[in-house]
């Protein structure tokens, strides 16, 4: 090593660092100021080193995997009843051990043992604090169990032991999206809020204090302990129990901690969680910047700085969030950055008042609503609404540009017709008509734009004092305002009402759209021949709404009645004939009339092909109807083809709204799942789900059904662990008894049941299914829900070893007409019936239904798909038990190889289940079990999935 200037400098930095590190903050500042006076660069470097040294987590210094066994007196008892087992970590305050209770039921606890020679704490005081903290019982807080002072004077705390991973590492390891991180973080805010309500501050919130347990539940550690440690502390500036990197500025100044300082610390954690830039690094960068006023740089700025300074670190951070660095910057630039900035404002008064307010704003961000953190500007709320509701932007564009474009088309048409027609008189009349039409359309479009602008202007909080008006409320207000306008003629009024209705429908609120749509149609009805385009333009959203509200007969009647008019009407951007046919066909499909639906769909497609318009929205609707009819007829491969075409059209047509595009992909994915194309389905759903969630909210119908489908795809790919986060999300959706919401609840329950059945929680599944059936059994509208859940109830009973109850459930579900008509439902039920008979001891009677199930899957999916193999395996299993023919064991081994090939690996749920089955079967046939290593591997896999020390015993393989 040469004595380069660099080296000299870095050694000087080390000397300063070593000297200043032990000083209180105020003394450090004095020294740094003096140093800066003659070497500002050195001072800045030392400041940064100090800041990073403050943040060094001494826990890292303890290698959990190789604790020194000789020191961990396995016999030492703490508090007379906690036996230390091993060291978990170690920090500035003391050490943490895993310990076991010796006095009661087996319970593991974490014991925090403070350093010897720490502050003297009286036993009485420890007891008092413990009584206060013991009240802090919250699902996201690791509870304090006991506290005391050891014989040698070391204070100790016994807390719930959380077997988990640190929040940020956990998220990074799973490549959690920003949205997912925010969702988990909200739980932390709630926990802090809960403690604040109990008048307890945390005072030392930091990433290492937040763990995610094995269930994926965030847990906050060390609540209130900082206070106990500092209580008798006299050191004026720097509190021992404080991690300076995450402390609020007032805490660093030595002011007492408040709820606002906890909010600041929450903000600091959120900063790092989202941006990947630890807050102390951002802060030291800011300290060099004279203009910072002590504020942290915005997270997106910190990230941008990092992209320049350390591109690979920035890329890694972005990758861990499933984004590119640039996209992550953009994501953090908007509301999220504002939320973090408000939480980490240097002045406590500028922060969120409570942890709850922070959580609320994060919720609003997740729901795509305007957040409070932002300056309340019109541009902001306007922009936000436009971003959230593509329809709003589209409405304005359509209204202002779209109609103008239609005018141009009209003129073109007039011109070409002028050439074609020889009769001058007819030509003149035609042109005049077109001009009149164009003029009235232009006037109308201007009126609409003016009107919509005035509606948006009302969202200006400076005028109305409220910013967080929801889009439906805004539309309702628009409808009211419309009725009071005198400068709007009736057709315009009706068209605007129809727009509003359409917008409600696009927002997933068809109920609210019904009245305006009906009014619009009624207003235009008398003039429907003169204003045919306007009339049909109002009718179409009404049909969509009817279909959305299960009023299919209304849709059929209305469409049928208007078909003749539609057939002779041109213009308005639709092939009206095809559009109405597609909607009527869809209504048929919803009523289960597959043939009528298919006939309408094909007529619509034909009409579109004739007119050469087989490329737009109408074509998508017609194909969608065709696909739905195909599903009803169990022709899933035809459905796949139709959906693939809709997506191709949607990708080419920029006027197709995002939500439509997403729904199409999700429908396609669901169909792919049915035909066993699980990998492609997963890829599609993973690409749409988060976007759809941002657009429509976590509990919108489309999002919930897609989540349920994705969950089932994960299960079908043999990987239940991947399904876990979705299961948690479904579980978090509040239970509703609203009959309108029953279909939503159905998908939630189905997803939860499939997951529980896959991981061996059979009792739980049985209970959940029963409670759903009890709650909906009397609801006549719930026939289909009934049989879907009934089958899963039967499955749970079967797995629990109650084949008679299972058989009864399967057979009752088979009775349903919807099941008779659905290949997939029938096959699944036949498989269940077969396994139930087998379990009941009648293997011979099991063969036939299992054979039928295999045949059904084969027709649906083609040979050698996992779904087919499953029933074939079950069938062989039944045959082997019935005939004791040992050769069938070899056949099963062949099927196993095929299953491994279909799933692309051995470490899959269903392969483990098969190994379990094979082992049991060959023993029953008097043969040795399967290879011991393979069996151990299966058992271990199943244990891991079940998250328990015992592998569940399955009856057969989970479905695909």
């Amino acid at each position: 090593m040469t004595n380069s200037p660099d080296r000299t400098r870095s050694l000087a930095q080390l000397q300063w660092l070593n000297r200043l590190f032990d000083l209180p903050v105020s003394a450090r500042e004095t020294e740094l100021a003096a140093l800066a006076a003659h070497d500002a660069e050195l001072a800045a470097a030392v400041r940064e080193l100090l800041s990073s040294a403050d943040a060094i987590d001494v826990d890292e210094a303890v290698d959990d995997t190789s604790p020194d066994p000789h020191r961990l007196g396995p016999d030492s008892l703490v508090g007379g009843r906690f036996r230390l087992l091993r060291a978990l970590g170690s920090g500035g305050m003391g050490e943490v051990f895993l310990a076991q209770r010796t006095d009661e039921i087996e319970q593991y606890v974490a014991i925090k043992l403070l350093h010897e020679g720490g502050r003297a704490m009286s036993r009485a005081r420890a007891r008092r604090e413990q009584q206060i903290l013991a009240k802090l019982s919250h699902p996201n807080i690791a509870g304090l169990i006991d506290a005391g002072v050891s014989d040698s004077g070391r204070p100790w705390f016994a807390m719930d032991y959380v077997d988990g991973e640190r929040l940020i590492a956990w998220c990074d390891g799973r490549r959690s999206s920003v949205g997912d991180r925010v969702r988990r973080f909200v739980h932390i805010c709630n926990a802090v809020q809960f403690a604040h309500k109990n008048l307890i501050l945390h005072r030392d919130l930091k990433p290492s204090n937040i763990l995610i347990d094995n269930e994926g539940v965030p847990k906050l550690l060390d609540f209130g302990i900082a206070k106990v440690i500092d209580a008798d502390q006299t050191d004026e500036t720097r509190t021992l129990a404080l991690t300076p990197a995450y402390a609020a500025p007032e805490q660093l100044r030595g002011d007492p901690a408040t709820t606002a300082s906890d909010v600041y610390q929450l903000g600091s954690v959120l900063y790092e969680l989202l941006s990947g830039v630890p807050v102390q690094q951002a802060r030291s960068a800011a300290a060099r910047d004279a203009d910072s006023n002590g504020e942290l740089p915005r997270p997106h700025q910190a990230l941008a700085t990092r992209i320049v300074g350390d591109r690979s670190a920035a890329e890694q951070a972005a990758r861990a969030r499933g984004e590119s660095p640039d996209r992550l910057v953009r994501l953090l630039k908007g509301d999220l950055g504002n939320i973090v900035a408000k939480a980490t404002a240097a002045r406590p008064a500028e922060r969120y008042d409570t942890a709850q307010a922070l959580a609320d704003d994060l919720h609003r961000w997740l729901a795509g609503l305007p957040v409070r953190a932002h300056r309340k500007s019109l541009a902001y709320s306007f922009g936000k609404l436009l971003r959230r509701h593509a329809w709003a932007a589209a409405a304005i564009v359509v209204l202002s540009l779209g109609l103008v474009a239609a005018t141009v088309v009209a003129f073109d048409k007039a011109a070409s017709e002028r050439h074609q027609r020889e009769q001058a008189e007819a030509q003149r009349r035609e042109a005049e008509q077109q001009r009149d039409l164009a003029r009235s359309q232009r006037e109308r479009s201007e009126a609409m734009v003016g009107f919509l602008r005035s509606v948006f202007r009302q969202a200006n909080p400076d005028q109305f004092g409220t910013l967080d008006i929801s889009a439906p409320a805004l539309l309702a207000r628009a409808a009211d305002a419309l009725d009071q306008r005198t400068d709007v003629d009736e057709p315009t009024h009706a068209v605007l009402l129809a727009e509003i209705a359409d917008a409600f429908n696009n927002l997933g609120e068809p109920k609210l759209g019904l009245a305006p749509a009906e009014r619009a149609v009624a207003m235009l009805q008398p003039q429907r021949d003169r204003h045919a385009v306007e009339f049909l333009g109002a009718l179409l959203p009404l049909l969509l709404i009817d279909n959305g509200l299960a009023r299919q007969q209304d849709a059929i009647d209305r469409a049928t009645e208007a078909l003749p008019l539609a057939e002779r009407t041109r213009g308005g951007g639709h092939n009206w004939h095809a559009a109405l046919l597609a909607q009527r066909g869809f209504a048929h499909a919803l009523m289960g009339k597959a043939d009528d639906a298919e006939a309408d769909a094909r007529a619509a497609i034909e009409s579109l092909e004739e007119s050469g318009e087989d490329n737009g929205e109408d074509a998508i609707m017609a194909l969608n109807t065709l696909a739905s009819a195909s599903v009803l007829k169990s022709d899933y491969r035809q459905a796949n083809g139709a959906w693939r075409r809709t997506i191709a059209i949607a990708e080419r047509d920029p006027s197709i709204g995002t939500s439509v595009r997403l729904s199409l992909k999700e429908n396609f994915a669901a169909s792919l799942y049915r035909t066993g194309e699980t990998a492609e389905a997963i890829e599609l759903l993973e690409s749409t789900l988060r976007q759809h969630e941002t657009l429509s909210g976590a509990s919108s119908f489309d999002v919930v059904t897609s989540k349920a489908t994705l969950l089932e795809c994960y299960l079908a790919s043999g990987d239940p662990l991947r399904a876990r986060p979705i299961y948690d999300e479904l579980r978090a959706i509040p239970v509703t008894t609203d009959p309108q919401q029953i279909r939503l609840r159905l998908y939630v329950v189905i997803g939860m049941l499939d997951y529980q059945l896959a991981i061996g929680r059979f009792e739980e599944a049985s209970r959940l299914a029963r409670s759903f059936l009890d709650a909906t059994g009397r609801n006549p509208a719930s026939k289909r829900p009934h049989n879907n859940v009934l089958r899963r109830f039967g499955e749970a009973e079967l797995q629990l070893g109650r084949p008679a109850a299972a058989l009864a459930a399967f057979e009752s579900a088979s009775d349903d007409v919807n099941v008779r008509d659905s290949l997939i439902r029938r096959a699944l039920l036949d498989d269940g019936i077969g396994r139930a008979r087998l379990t009941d001891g009648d293997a011979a009677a099991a063969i036939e239904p299992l054979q039928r199930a295999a045949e059904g899957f084969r027709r649906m999916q083609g040979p050698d798909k996992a779904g087919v193999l499953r029933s074939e395996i079950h069938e062989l299993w039944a045959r082997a038990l019935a005939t004791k023919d040992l050769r069938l064991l070899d056949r099963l081994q062949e099927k196993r190889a095929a299953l491994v090939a279909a799933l692309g690996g051995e470490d899959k749920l269903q392969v483990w289940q098969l190994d379990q089955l094979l082992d049991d079967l060959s023993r029953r046939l008097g043969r040795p079990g399967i290879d011991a290593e393979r069996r151990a591997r299966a058992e271990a896999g199943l244990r891991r999935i079940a998250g328990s020390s015992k592998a569940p015993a399955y009856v057969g393989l989970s479905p695909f």
Partner: protein
Amino acid sequence: MHQSGDVTLLIDAWQGGDAGALDQLLPLVYADLRAMAARLLAGESASTLQPTELLHDTLLKVLRVDALRIVDRQHFFSASARLMRHLIVDRIREARAEKRGGDWERVDLIEAINLPLPHDMDIERLHVAIDDLDQVEPRLARIVELRYFVGLTMQDIAKALDVDERTVYRGWAVARSWLQTQMAP
């Protein structure tokens, strides 16, 4: 258990340029070192401690001192820590020179002797930085060596160096902070 004769051969082979010999030697040296550390830290007095022949020989050869007598606990650990750092760095250099997947070798080696060295740590640069640390604040260098190259916990380091734990924690924080700047690309 190993035969001391074999060990002597191994040491000679290694000194003679056979890098592979060090691979066999290191786990043995570590086993001895850790056993001694355990006894020392469990409270046996330094005077009763005798390093095994293996450890003694290795210390002598690597540190190139004429005679080594363990004076006290602090001395023993300081010498061992330095020894281990040099051994590991030597091994990594040799592996690199052999050009047979140096990095793989490194991970393999460090895992075999169970050291808490971060996987992405550039050992060569760490080695140079610790030399610098040694000049300004030797105790910081010892803490880093004992942690990274012997694998002691913070508590054990405190005992080994005969200082209180807070001193070790603070030293560790200072050293790590500074090392980060030295290791930065």
